[in-house]
């Protein structure tokens, strides 16, 4: 958690969100692991549930952003970016959170917004690989659970 705390609370140092830092991982898996519940028989149950929720939610919010950019409705774009930043931060999806923060807090132009959305979509593909691998690792062969 402490890593996120530092990275997600950069307001005292403007500019930290300008670009995800080179050393920043796409996903801090220790955050996901913190949702394991060793007291239950299905220790990874919540982690898997959250991964599924995140993928669904992120897909929806990226689509909202795309539509918002098309119509240049920046409040819609920023709202969606705000939501995705929250979800991403909660699960340790750090780089996505960083780019969302830029989208939320920058003076948006069509060019910048399109660029940021493209960054987000590329990063989301990358994050997807990591999360699917993590999900499979936790569910074993039974991917349907």
């Amino acid at each position, binding site marked *: 958690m402490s890593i996120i705390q530092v990275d997600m609370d950069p*307001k005292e140092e403007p500019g930290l969100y300008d670009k995800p830092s080179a050393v920043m991982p796409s996903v801090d898996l220790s955050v996901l692991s*913190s949702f394991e*519940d060793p007291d239950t028989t299905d220790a990874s149950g*919540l982690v898997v549930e*959250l991964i599924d*929720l995140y993928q669904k939610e992120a897909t929806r919010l990226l689509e909202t952003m795309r539509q918002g950019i098309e119509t240049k409705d920046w409040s819609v774009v920023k709202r969606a970016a*705000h939501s995705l930043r929250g979800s991403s*931060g*909660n*699960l340790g999806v750090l780089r996505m959170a960083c780019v969302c923060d830029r989208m939320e807090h920058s003076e948006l132009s069509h060019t910048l917004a399109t660029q940021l959305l493209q960054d987000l979509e590329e990063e989301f593909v990358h994050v997807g690989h990591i999360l699917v691998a993590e999900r499979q690792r936790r569910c074993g062969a039974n991917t349907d659970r």
Partner: protein
Amino acid sequence: MRILIAEDDPISRRVLAVQLGKWGHEVISTQNGLEAWDVLHTADAPLVAILDWMMPGMDGVEICRRMRQEKTDSPTYIILLTAKSRKENVIEGLEAGADDYLTKPFDRHELRVRLQAGARIAELQENLRERVKELEEAIIEKEHAEQELRNLTLTDHLTGLYNHRGFFTLAEHVAKLGKRSGQQSLLIYADMDGLKQINDTLGHATGSKAIAKLAEILQQTFRDCDIVARLGGDEFTILCPNVRVDEADRIIQRLRDNLQAYNNASDNDFSLSLSLGAVPIDYTDNLTLEEQIAAADRSMYRDKQLRKAEQILQGNNRLPLTPIGHLPTT
């Protein structure tokens, strides 16, 4: 403890709900501000609420603002949980009425201790509310007890005259004596004029003073053996034992003179005036005391009407005597 969560982001909502559940709290999850608002207005609303700032319907800050406007006696402890982490956001949130502020993604240790602090305050508040309720109930009970005690006493608290109960107790006693001795009594019914006007213009405290002053004049006017009572409000009765009907005018004139003497003094806040009715009681007609009081009341009412008419016609305040000769029969 029951905790309300309002959060539109399903992941934050789920994470929060799971975390709170682990700590043994009962969680009520809502997806937007309007749902949260409804839950906060149920009879058994949770004492602590964790609200997201940005939500569809009604945002967390708006909920804070409106909740604080309501000034309920059991205010909800509200923690704003939001990704808005700038200093001005924190200030705006707290100014809107949030009790505490946490930024997302939340640190669970921080949330746990902040919730502990919140729960402590919420419980103190709840205890205080219970205590105030108990005290209010105790005050009402005490007032009831005092009223009951008053009902058991024979004298009127404000004037020191006999009260309704005192009057009836003593009047029954006089009736017994009267029946045995065959002596007549005089029953006077007196209604204070203009008490409402005094209350309305000078206040109820002055109204009470006027009633007390009137009682004083009544006590000065009548003999020690007469039973002077305040039946309630602005109504008085006087029972004068061993008084013949032809003495009535003189007695009533004495009362009017005493009132006039008081009114002539220049330093009074108010002037006093009475409408009076009187009936002779000879104890052979087997009328009840209530019936005799009712007869005196009717006689008083005629006096009041007469006086009003006379005041209108003559524009003077000289009050005529009650026409004892035209007493109604019951």
